[in-house]
């Protein structure tokens, strides 16, 4: 695995003025003394997973139109973050995602049907968090930051080599929990990595109304958390900075705050109308900075990605989408009796009475 060098500046608290990057928007390599280009096999894997992830994302949006999903928050345009961050994790590490991060989940290996259970409406969460080391997707904004810090601190107390990576949005950085979590993580030197996906909007509210600091990464400074600003549409750079932050955390170097500048190409969810608050020109400019195109251009120019491999990856993505359609088109089996099962370790007498009442009603 490629490792970045660790010059003194990187562990200084301040982020760089310009986002770190390894690829220009047209896929030319950038020489950055602070980052090392990931190995070719990593880049090819990033590409493959981003293509598959994007196909999953469009499939999920389509499923909302067919009434198979109640709602879907798309991460189209944010694939470098969704995929790059997850591939930078080790198996023993934990991921603390939000509602936006379904692509990160499937990249982590959570089966699609279990990832989409929440949005399909069969239950609040469909997978075993311990099996995948992925916390339930978190909707109350920024609350997951504290869970990540707690889990990481416990790992440290137990002498476990585990790092927690928590994903939050730009809007969520205004929530108190983000700030408490940064401070707790710093005081405890917890092995945790904060990745802020700054996609420009919190539903309709733009960055300008959310923050006037020079960057969101600057928010780590006041807490003593080293902070990094990275081009969030650059999969190579994203992978490199997260990988580095994970390594530092695992080596006892404490938390890192990473702000990735990216863009939410779709509306907040399929139920939102983004034309009410942003211009088509703005979207077009960001489409021009597409993360998948970028890595494709680089790999093609390097001779690592030819038409045959491109076709193989596309076919894999199509096959995956077809399998997602198939599992999601099956009717969800729900059991009303289960409503009472997981409230307490043992259902209380009152819950058993209520379960009997409902069973009678359904008999």
């Amino acid at each position, binding site marked *: 695995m490629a490792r970045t060098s660790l010059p003194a500046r990187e562990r200084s608290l301040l982020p760089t003025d310009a986002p770190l990057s390894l690829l220009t928007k047209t896929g030319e390599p950038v020489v950055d003394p602070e980052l090392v280009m990931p190995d070719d096999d990593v880049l090819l894997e990033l590409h493959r997973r981003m293509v598959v992830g994007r196909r999953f994302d469009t499939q999920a949006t389509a499923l909302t139109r067919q009434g198979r999903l109640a709602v879907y928050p798309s991460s189209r345009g944010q694939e470098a973050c969704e995929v790059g961050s997850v591939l930078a994790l080790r198996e023993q590490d934990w991921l603390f995602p939000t509602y936006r991060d379904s692509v990160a989940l499937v990249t982590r290996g959570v089966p699609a049907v279990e990832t989409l259970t929440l949005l399909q409406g069969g*239950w*609040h*969460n469909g997978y*075993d*968090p*311990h099996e995948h080391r992925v*916390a*339930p997707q978190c909707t*109350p904004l920024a*609350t997951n*930051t*504290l*869970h*990540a*810090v*707690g*889990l*990481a*601190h*416990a*790992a440290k*107390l*137990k002498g*476990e080599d*585990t790092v*927690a990576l928590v994903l939050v949005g730009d809007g969520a950085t205004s929530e*108190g*929990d983000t700030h*408490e*979590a940064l*401070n*707790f993580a710093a*005081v405890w030197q917890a092995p945790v990595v904060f990745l802020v996906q700054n996609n420009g909007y919190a539903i309709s509210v733009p960055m300008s109304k959310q923050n006037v600091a020079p960057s969101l990464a600057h928010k780590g400074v006041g807490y003593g958390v080293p902070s990094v600003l990275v081009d969030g549409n650059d999969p190579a750079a994203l992978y490199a900075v997260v990988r580095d932050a994970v390594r530092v955390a695992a080596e006892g170097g404490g938390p890192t705050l990473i702000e990735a500048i990216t863009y939410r190409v779709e509306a907040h969810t399929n139920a939102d109308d983004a034309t009410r608050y942003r211009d088509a020109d703005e979207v077009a400019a960001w489409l021009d900075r597409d993360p998948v195109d970028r890595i494709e251009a680089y790999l093609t120019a390097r001779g690592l990605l030819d038409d045959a491999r491109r076709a193989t990856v596309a076919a894999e993505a199509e096959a995956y989408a077809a399998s997602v359609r198939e599992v999601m088109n099956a009717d969800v089996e729900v059991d009303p009796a*289960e409503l009472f*099962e*997981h*409230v*307490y*370790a043992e259902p*209380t*007498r*009152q819950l058993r009475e209520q379960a009997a009442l409902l069973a009678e009603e359904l008999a």
Partner: protein
Amino acid sequence: MSTLSMSGALNMALADALEADERVLVFGEDVGPLGGVFRITDGLAARFGDRRVFDTPLAESGIVGTAIGMAMNGMRPVVEMQFDAFAYPAFEQITSHLAKMRNRTRGKVEVPVVIRIPYGGGIGGVEHHCDSSEAYYTHTSGLRVVTPGTPQDGYDLLRDAIDSPDPVIFLEPKRRYWSKGEVVADQRRTGFDRALIRRPGEDVTLIAYGPMVATALETAEAAKEEGWDVEVVDLRSLSPFDDETVCGSVRRTGRAVVVHEAAGFGGYGAEVVARVTERCFHHLHAPVLRVTGFDIPYPPPKLEEHFLPGVDRILDTIGRLQWDDEVRGA
């Protein structure tokens, strides 16, 4: 057996739990070297080290939120909120995550966290230090809510809470911290979610919990002069609720009064009255009445005596239970 204050019993329970299970961690504001503002964690940091008993940054959501993460990683955190009203910053973590994690994950993730909260008035505290916030928690499915009325229950319920696989809101009646009683360690006789009949009686059931248990017992003594034989039920576990013990008592006495410090409107007592009425209607000689705090913010120290339910107000209320309709004790 030893004679201990409730604070001493709570301290012993924490020490015994830390001793018994290395997954147990105690943390919060000032709980380390100081031993907590009420000294409940006195000596624990020195004895168990600052890896297991430690001060955190001053942020309640942070304390509960990180406790959840630690529990996800196999720990059994016991955290302290310094006072009732200062637990409110943690409300989102408690209601949206702590209470729901098991349910959301279909039982896959347990978060056995205990949140200790000194609550209630009667100590001349200034504003924000005297709230009775139990109803906020009892209204939240997934939480257990317990409150001791005696030093022995301080020990027993806290050990049970720490052993419980469910998250527990542990409400400590701060005005009773210094009340003394006999305490036997490691001999938990009453079930975690059972109420206890503290004093048997024939004529009326006084239902109380936490700080009002002592007041109810005092009232029962005073009621003898009026010729009323009062049974006192200490709920101990506010959620889940022990219908069996409470209703068993009310069916025998035929009359009941619920007492709590918290404001009455939408309060915990309303639930108790409803449950008792639904289940014991044909045994009741009078409507079930409540003696509660008024529907006002907790008053300033010089006025709190007018707010807190006391012996006289409870006796007056017992007097309104339609005794004239029958020969007393018949």
